[in-house]
């Protein structure tokens, strides 16, 4: 994985750049000490590390605007960062770049129950929003597993999902408005407290743009009333194929569960050994299906799900009868990653999405790959929406194992694309999957996406080296050869 070659000319001007930043953000808002910079050297994808040239921590939108404008004028790259929980290296610093930390934007600005929305600064955590509205029985729906730490600004950048997103949507489906700053310092407002925005759906393309288009300085999200009740059913199957069929049958019956998770045998065993959730150990696949909503609905549907499971050959089924029991069902799933961490020195978490019907094939091929690479794999799966999280087990201290784990991971993601799926369902491309983009998209597809980038950031200074495998100059991408009169009149139906 190669990052853009650092510009030694920029690094040589470090002192000048730092003093320009200090003129905008005074005092401790500009960090240059190596020991302090160390805190920013990586995000959740810890295999890649790089000290930034300098860190700047603005606290107002005007400062963000000035920082970006100044960096643009000086030709300096900028990497935006929220809480740094990205699992794909979206906030990996650059040796010749300014790291722009948004941590000081940590206030909720307006809680508006009448319009069912919250206006907040981007550095507020995902869970912080839900906590701020919980006293009235509301919450913010997307719930990435890092929700205690990850910020809403980072969620916008990554279009974060979570366990409940099949029913309640990803970040993009829950954002109403944004204030953002472009690389040239322009401050823009998009959307607001109303449902539709005017003009192009720029909010749609900014959400999930991994910090390449602009820096978000204010967010308006919609909040929902908490479901009155939730119950879960734990269902075990002798084969993962039957578990997959059960998921399909539940959806075919018109049921969209609040959560629907699948674990394979290695994941079940690791989780059970760790938290003793009471999972059955003699099944090949385990489903957790959670129904939420009005009590009458949940009671009705939990019965139907149990019936469907029996019809699909379930060999184990347990319906939660109390809130404690429901939470215990989830305890194992939620601890699956650390549980796998106990049985292996290191693990590498993948994030492809597949059409669900391809699950048996994908699991079988993954087993073959596991044998080929000589590394074990455990699977947890957002079964409702086909989002796989294979956990590849390896030992970074054994020479070559990290590289083999990465190769194994790449093979899995190529397989996801091959069966009609995609490289990433919720973790983002970042640096991690950047070089696989050509497997999912043709050159022409990627060039069109890069031209969108040019509309926002023509010099390519904002978070370069992420998402796109090859960097092109905007002038080159914009070139258009038109040969007037050379094309014959198109030979297509006309009237």
């Amino acid at each position, binding site marked *: 994985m190669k990052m853009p070659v650092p510009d030694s000319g920029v690094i040589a001007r470090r002192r000048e750049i730092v003093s320009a930043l200090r003129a905008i953000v005074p005092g401790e808002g500009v960090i240059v000490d190596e020991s302090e910079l160390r805190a920013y050297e990586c995000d959740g994808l810890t295999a890649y590390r790089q000290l930034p040239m300098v860190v700047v921590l603005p606290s107002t939108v005007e400062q963000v605007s000035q920082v970006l404008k100044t960096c643009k004028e000086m030709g300096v790259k900028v990497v935006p960062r929220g809480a740094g929980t990205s699992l794909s290296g979206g906030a990996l610093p650059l040796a010749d770049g300014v790291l722009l930390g948004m941590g000081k934007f940590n206030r909720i600005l307006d809680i*508006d129950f009448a319009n069912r929305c919250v206006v907040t600064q981007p550095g507020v955590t995902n869970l912080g929003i839900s906590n701020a509205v919980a006293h009235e*029985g509301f919450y913010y729906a997307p719930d990435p597993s890092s929700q205690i730490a990850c910020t809403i600004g980072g969620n916008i950048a*990554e*279009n974060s*999902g979570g366990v409940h*997103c*099949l029913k309640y949507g*990803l970040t*993009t489906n829950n954002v109403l408005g944004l204030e953002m700053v*472009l690389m040239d310092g322009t401050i823009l407002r*998009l959307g*607001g407290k*109303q*449902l*539709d*925005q*005017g*003009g*192009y*759906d*720029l909010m*749609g*393309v900014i959400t999930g*743009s991994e910090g390449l288009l602009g820096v978000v300085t204010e967010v308006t999200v919609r909040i929902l*009333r908490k479901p009155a009740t939730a119950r879960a059913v734990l269902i075990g199957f002798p084969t993962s194929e039957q578990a997959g069929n059960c998921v*399909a049958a539940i*959806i*075919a019956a*018109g049921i*969209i569960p609040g959560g629907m998770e699948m674990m394979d045998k290695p994941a079940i065993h690791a989780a059970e050994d760790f938290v003793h959730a009471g999972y059955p150990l003699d099944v090949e696949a385990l489903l957790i299906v959670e129904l939420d*909503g*009005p*009590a009458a*609905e949940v009671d*009705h549907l939990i019965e139907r799900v149990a019936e469907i499971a029996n019809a699909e050959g379930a060999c184990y089924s347990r319906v939660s009868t109390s809130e404690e029991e429901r939470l215990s069902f989830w305890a194992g799933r939620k601890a699956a990653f650390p549980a796998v961490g106990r049985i292996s020195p290191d693990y590498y978490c993948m994030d492809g999405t*597949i*059409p*669900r*019907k391809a699950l048996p094939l994908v699991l079988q091929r993954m087993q073959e790959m596991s044998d080929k690479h000589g590394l074990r794999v455990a699977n947890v799966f957002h079964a409702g929406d*086909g989002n796989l999280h294979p956990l590849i087990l390896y030992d970074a201290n054994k020479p070559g194992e990290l590289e083999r784990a990465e190769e194994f991971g790449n093979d899995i993601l190529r397989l996801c694309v091959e069966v*009609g799926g995609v490289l*990433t369902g919720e973790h983002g*491309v970042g640096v991690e999957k950047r070089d696989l983009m050509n497997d*999912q*998209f043709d050159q022409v*597809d990627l060039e069109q*996406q890069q*031209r969108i*980038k040019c*509309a*926002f950031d023509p010099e390519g200074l904002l978070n370069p080296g992420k998402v796109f495998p090859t960097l092109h100059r905007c002038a080159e991408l*914009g070139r*258009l050869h*038109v040969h*007037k*009169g050379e*094309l014959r009149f*198109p*030979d*297509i139906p006309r009237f």
Partner: protein
Amino acid sequence: MTETTFKPETAAQAAEAVRWALSEGEPLDVVGTGSKRTLGRPMQTAYTLDLSGLNGVVAYEPEELVLTAKAGTPMAVILPMLEERRQQLAFEPQDLGALFGQPAGQGTLGGVLACGLAGPRRISAGSARDHALGIEGVNGRGEVYKGGGKVVKNVTGYDVPKLMAGSFGTLTALTEVTVKVLPAPEDTRTLVLAGRDDAAAVEALTRAMQSPYEVSGAAHLPAGVAARSGVRAVAGAGAAVTLVRLEGFGPSVAARVAALKEELGADAVLERDDSLAVWKEIRDVTAFAGERERHIWKLSVPPADGPKVASAIRDVTDADLFFDWGGGLIWVAVVPNSGSSDAVRRVLNGSGHATLVRAPEDVRASADVFQPLSEPLMALSRRVKESFDPRGILSPGRMYAGV
């Protein structure tokens, strides 16, 4: 105006037409069946790119919750196909045929996405944008490209399909669209509150939306609009009618209807057939289909501001109006010349936005049909347009001059 219409049957043919237009410097009016052609600024092109020949469902997999179809596939084909498997497009796409004085059922899937239209369920299920998973289309360089994917959960690369929603063909001539489909509700009931004024009605709708009963429709029809309903229980109220829809599984709907009826003090409950009928009227704005001379505005505002905005509109023009989306969507039918053409938009004062959905061609040529954007936003929109269509070949000016 149009001299020649190209009607490609494949994406490659569509690309060929765009490359020809590019080489001649001739802009194209990009259309499907043209059912919403009068929505937007009038086009002045000599050539039309008609995408209705790109017709056919490519893949429908109910259990994957995904449907892929050629962009010109009629909604009249797609909707019954979904209905047969008890599924739907949850954003409740509008059919504006009647409003535009045309037959109903003429639209295409590509047109629904390109116009970004959604019905009453917008409040709970989102809009067309929220259900667009993937696209294939021809950009203004004459290249066939794809964006997004064909699975329900995907964050790989930029979310290009969202950018297509509400772009009115100005960025890409869509050739194929993949959408998320969802189960259709087993049952539908509607609570009716009679005789509430706008403020009391929106207050009741707000309480309904704040409740845990999963409301999927929240509308208020002032007396004059309610009287035009084809549903007797609505028209016969002889007063304003406030409507709250509850959908889902039978036992769940029954329980929620009982609880919310009590909480809101509702006067009546519409059963399934009446419910379906009245929400279809609201979705398609049929109350304003007659009186063809009236200009129709669509206002999207913060829901709680709805009554205030409505009152300001009534102060400056002679208008009929009704509310959907819990007060956040106001449909306004204005008597022409009863105020300046922009009076409706000006009452918003920057909070929310207004679209002139129906007006004669000369009015649409001179007034801003879509909400004017702030200068920096307009500049960015122009650059985004250029990134897809550098020579302004695809429906230039349909949304904004220079875009």
